[in-house]
Every structure is written in structure tokens, then in C-alpha cells.
């Protein structure tokens, strides 16, 4: 993994003879260019799933109409708290379960058709493999299912197991493996057939900080090589830096989706600013002016003022500060603001639901 993270030359994900192309569209053309059907490698259209539980078949709505489109080369974070339906969606995408309503299109077709899944690398949530096999044997088996030649299987599994740091354990049965080691086996097998699209369910959960960093490095390398990544997480901060766009799921519904940068800029997000204003007689008036900005919460500090305000109000704040002869000392996007956005959306939906 360290070899991979160093990023020099011949990484497994992109052999030296191919030039990695940057397929991620830039922020602007995401809005202006219409999506050509070729570009959409994965789309969910009103995906719904109702489970029947218990003797009477009581319905549990795990998904209630999720729609999203993923472009080739995009890295999409699928976020939501536990039980929000991430795993259920992913299982629909890889054909383990069938949707109750709506449609999944994988490379333009039904994921239930086996050949379509040849270009997909799937990592299950807390993966399990046959515990009597060694990592090499798992890779052999998986490679056969992908129709790889014996030589390719041996070469790729050797390389990949090395990259996930399992070279020492490659010939030991999985029986004694820790969760983190199994996760590495899972990652290696998902990459075996050099898939175009990676679908990883909670790749960072259950790992220690070191392991998380290593997996994040792998994901960054894959992304740089133009692979498409679809991965779920319930911890936003874990993946913020890894995805172009996010889809936030709550109780089976997508509550926010889009480019991460757009969401972070959206008016509902908050920033925290520390500003200095001239002291003296004008100070109370200046403070009153700033406090009058919409949505601002102002705290008077000995050295200045601290303001928590909607990110959309930042330009107005700066204009006001110029007028008043003050300046901005610090400006931060509140770290938890996307999480708060998510919470607000959830609360709002509850209220709407209650009113309806």
C-alpha cells in the first residue's frame, strides 16, 4: 500500500503504458453539459425496496424511490446513517436483491444479467470469504469467475495482495484473519479483474486509523486513474476528500445530492468567521450592523467578533467589513456543516411529513 501511495509510475490500477485520463468533468460543465447516455454508467430511477418481515409479512420500506445518475470516472459518495438503505441500494445494483419498484441500470442494462457485472468490482459490507481458503485461493476462484487466464490470475493476485499489504499472509487460511485483513482481501478481490466501476460498501468501516488511511490512499489512486467509484459511508469526514459528488440518504430517501462543492456552497451551510473591527465609539454601531445580516449569530470577543453565518452571506459580510474599516481574520467552513445540513433536511422532512 505504501508503494501505491507513493504513486510512482507503475501502479496496478493504471499500467505504465496507458496515460491516465482525467475523465471527471469540471465543476462548471457538470451543470451545463447534458449527460450523454454513454457517460452514465450507473443510474437508479425511483429505486424502491420493501422487505416483508415476521410471520405476517409486515412491510419495511428500506428504500422509497431513490434516483441518481453516475458518470464514467466519477467518484460518488453514498452517505447516510446506519439503516438508511445504503447496503440495500448497493445490493440492488449488484443484483443480489431485486427492486420492488423502480429501475437500476448498470452500463445501460439490467444488473441481473451476469455479463454486465464483468466490469464491476464489488466489495461487500464486512466481507466474508470461505475461511478455509487462503487469499491466493480466493483470488484464483474469483479470477476464474471473471474468465481470466491462469497467468493473469497469478500475476494480478500476486500484485494486488502485495498492494493491500497481504504478501505475508497470502498463503494462510482466512480462518484466523482479523476484520481489517478480511477487508483487504475484499478490496484485492474487487480489483482483480481491473473493473471500470468499483462498488464498495463501507470500505472504511471496521478499520483502525492506519488501515483507513491506507484504504483512502488506494481510493485516491483509483480515482486518479479514472476509475469510477461508488462507495458508501456513514461518516462524512472520512470521505469528504474522496468524492466528486455525494448522495445523502435518510430513511430510504435521497435528501441531498450533487457536487460536494455545490452542496458546501449552498445557502443552508454555515461558515464561521472571526473579524476585527475598529475599536472606539463606532464599535457598538458596527457590531449592530454586522448582527443585522440575515442569519448571523454574533459573539463579541475581546479581540474582535466571532460570527456564525450562512455561507451565502459571506460576501455580504466582507462588503460590510470593508465599509466599516474592519477585516476578516479567519474564515472557516464549519466542519460539521454537511452533517448538519443532513440533519436539518431530515428534521424538515419530518415536519413536512407531519403537516401533510
Amino acid at each position, binding site marked *: 500500500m505504501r508503494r501505491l501511495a507513493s504513486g510512482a509510475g507503475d501502479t496496478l*490500477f*493504471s*499500467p505504465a503504458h*496507458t496515460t491516465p485520463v482525467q475523465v471527471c468533468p469540471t465543476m462548471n460543465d457538470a451543470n451545463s453539459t447534458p449527460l450523454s447516455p454513454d457517460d452514465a454508467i450507473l443510474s437508479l430511477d425511483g429505486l424502491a425496496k420493501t*422487505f416483508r418481515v415476521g410471520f405476517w409479512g409486515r412491510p419495511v420500506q428500506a428504500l422509497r424511490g431513490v434516483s441518481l445518475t453516475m458518470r464514467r470516472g466519477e467518484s460518488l459518495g453514498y452517505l447516510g446513517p446506519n439503516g438508511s438503505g445504503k447496503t*440495500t441500494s448497493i*445490493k440492488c445494483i*449488484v*443484483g*443480489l*436483491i*431485486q427492486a420492488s419498484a423502480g429501475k437500476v441500470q448498470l452500463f445501460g442494462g439490467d444488473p441481473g444479467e*451476469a*455479463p*454486465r*457485472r*464483468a*466490469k*464491476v468490482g*464489488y466489495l*461487500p459490507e464486512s*466481507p*466474508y*470469504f*470461505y*475461511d*478455509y*481458503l487462503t487469499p491466493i485461493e480466493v483470488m484464483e*476462484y*474469483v479470477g*476464474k*469467475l*471473471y*474468465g*481470466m*487466464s491462469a497467468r*493473469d490470475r497469478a500475476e*494480478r493476485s500476486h500484485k494486488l495482495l502485495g498492494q493491500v499489504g497481504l504478501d505475508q499472509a497470502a498463503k494462510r487460511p482466512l480462518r484466523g484473519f482479523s476484520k481489517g485483513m478480511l477487508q483487504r482481501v*475484499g478490496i484485492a*478481490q474487487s480489483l482483480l*479483474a*481491473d*473493473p*471500470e466501476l468499483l462498488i464498495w460498501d463501507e470500505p472504511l468501516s471496521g478499520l483502525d486509523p492506519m488501515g483507513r488511511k491506507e484504504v483512502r490512499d488506494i481510493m485516491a489512486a483509483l480515482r486518479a486513474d*479514472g476509475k469510477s467509484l461508488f462507495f458508501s459511508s456513514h461518516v462524512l469526514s472520512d470521505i469528504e476528500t474522496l468524492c466528486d459528488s455525494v448522495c445523502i440518504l435518510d430513511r430510504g430517501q435521497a435528501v441531498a445530492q450533487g457536487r460536494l462543492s455545490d452542496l458546501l456552497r449552498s445557502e443552508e451551510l454555515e461558515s464561521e468567521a472571526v473579524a476585527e473591527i475598529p475599536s472606539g465609539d463606532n464599535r457598538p454601531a458596527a457590531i449592530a450592523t454586522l448582527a443585522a445580516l440575515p442569519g448571523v449569530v454574533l459573539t463579541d470577543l475581546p479581540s474582535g467578533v466571532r460570527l456564525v453565518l450562512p455561507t451565502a452571506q459571506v460576501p455580504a459580510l466582507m462588503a460590510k467589513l470593508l465599509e466599516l474599516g474592519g477585516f476578516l481574520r479567519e474564515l472557516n467552513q464549519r466542519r460539521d456543516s454537511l452533517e448538519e445540513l443532513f440533519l436539518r433536511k431530515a428534521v424538515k422532512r419530518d415536519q413536512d411529513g407531519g403537516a401533510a
Partner: protein
Amino acid sequence: MTAIVTKSGLELHTSGAFAMLRRISAVVGNTLREAGRAKLFYGLLGAAVMLLGFSLVLSDLALVDQKARLVQSFGMAVVPLVCVGTAVLMGALLLHKEIDKKTLYAILPKPIARGEFIAGKLLGLCALLVIELVALALVWWAVLSMRGGQMTGPIVRGLALHVIELVLVTSIAVFFSALTRPVLSGLLTAGVFVVGRVTYVITDLLAARKGLFVEVPAMRAVGKALVVAIPDLSTFAVADPILQGWDVPWSYVASASMYGLCWALAFAVGAVLLFQRRDFT
């Protein structure tokens, strides 16, 4: 065959009959490997060997000219029964284990059709049963020759018939294990096996002039349904005729095999249809 070539030039051979056979044989290989490590399998094998050894001890008590005969009839009962027991028990666990241990979740999303997976599991277990049958037959042969008996042509052909029966019982077991939980599916398979061994009795009763199956309409319907829905496994039970000195000609083996394999195919197709609808949550 055209292969999928990935961006880095890796060739994936996923289409065509050959690719399909390779996938199925990968599943067969893994199934055999897993079954080969099951304690249950060795338990049954050990029990069978002990029973055969026991027949050796018993035969010491028999009259001189009856010694070989005793070992013969003992093996004729024990060998197939233990193999059928293996088929029922391991067949019931075959899919359950994959689901319970979640190993299936990493396999089914690969470019393998569910039907291919079932075919691989089924054939893998069949292969194991053939190995078991051959191993037990060899032990039996050794015991038999110690008592001056022989592995005759009819006995060998009888064993061949049992192979077909095992294939059929395995596909019944897989059918039920695609349908329901292991305990129930094991019981159902065992039930079908027992009823299948005696369907000819029901057929006779239905054809009789009097009796429950003739006089009670409901029983008649049940009887008819059983006869239609359950394969006649007595087709493969040739121990008694062989012991009485009858021959089992190859022509009979051939027609009985056709019968058994058609039924096996029907159950296998049913298993695939059930399995294809299933959600793996």
C-alpha cells in the same frame, strides 16, 4: 469468442459455452474442497466403514457357506444408504452454509449466472458422492474378498444405478434447500426419498379393486398426486433381485438412468427458478 478487454489490456473471457463451463467448474472445485473438509462427511464415511467392518465380525458367526452372502447383503444395504444420507444432509446444508456465512454475497455479484452457481454446487456434491460411493465400494470389496465373495457384474451395475439415484436425491435436496431452511429441507428430502422408494405400492393400491386409495376420493387424489410428483426410486433399488441371483442388464441401467436423470434435471431446473427469485439481504 470475443473477450472483454479492460483499459489496462486484461482479457476477460465471459461469453460462450466454454467460459460458462469454466465458471461452473470453478464452483464445483470449491464445493468439493469445502465438502472435503466437512466433519459430517468423514463422520458418515467412518460410520460406513465401521458397519462394513462389523459385517466382517458378524460373518464369523454365520455358517461357512453363508459368510460371503452376509457381507454382500450387508454392504448392499449400507453403502447406498450412507451415500443417500450424505446426499440428504449435505444437500440440505449446501446453499444454507453459503448464505449463512455470507460467502455467497461476494460470489453472486461476479459475472456468474445464478443457474451456473447452482449447477456448480449440485455437480460438486454429486462428485463428492461418487467419490464416497467408490471409496465405500472398495472397502466393501476388500471385506468381501476376505470372506471369499466377489464383486460381480450385477453388483457393479447396481452400484452404477445408485449413482444415478444419488444424483437425483442430490437435486431434490438442492431444490428444497433453495426453497426453505435446512432442517425442513432435509426432512422434505428424506420424505421424498422414502415415499419415492414405495410409490410402486401406492400405484398398486390405486389399481386395486378395493381399499382406502380406491374408496376414499380424497385419498385417491393424494395418491395420484404423489405418484405423479414423486419419482419412483424403487427403479434404482435392485439389491434384492441381485441377491436372489437376478441379473441387472445394461439395457435396464440405461433406461433407468434416463428416467433418473430426467427427474434430476426437473428438480435442478426448479431449484434454479426458486434461487433466481431470491433476495440475498
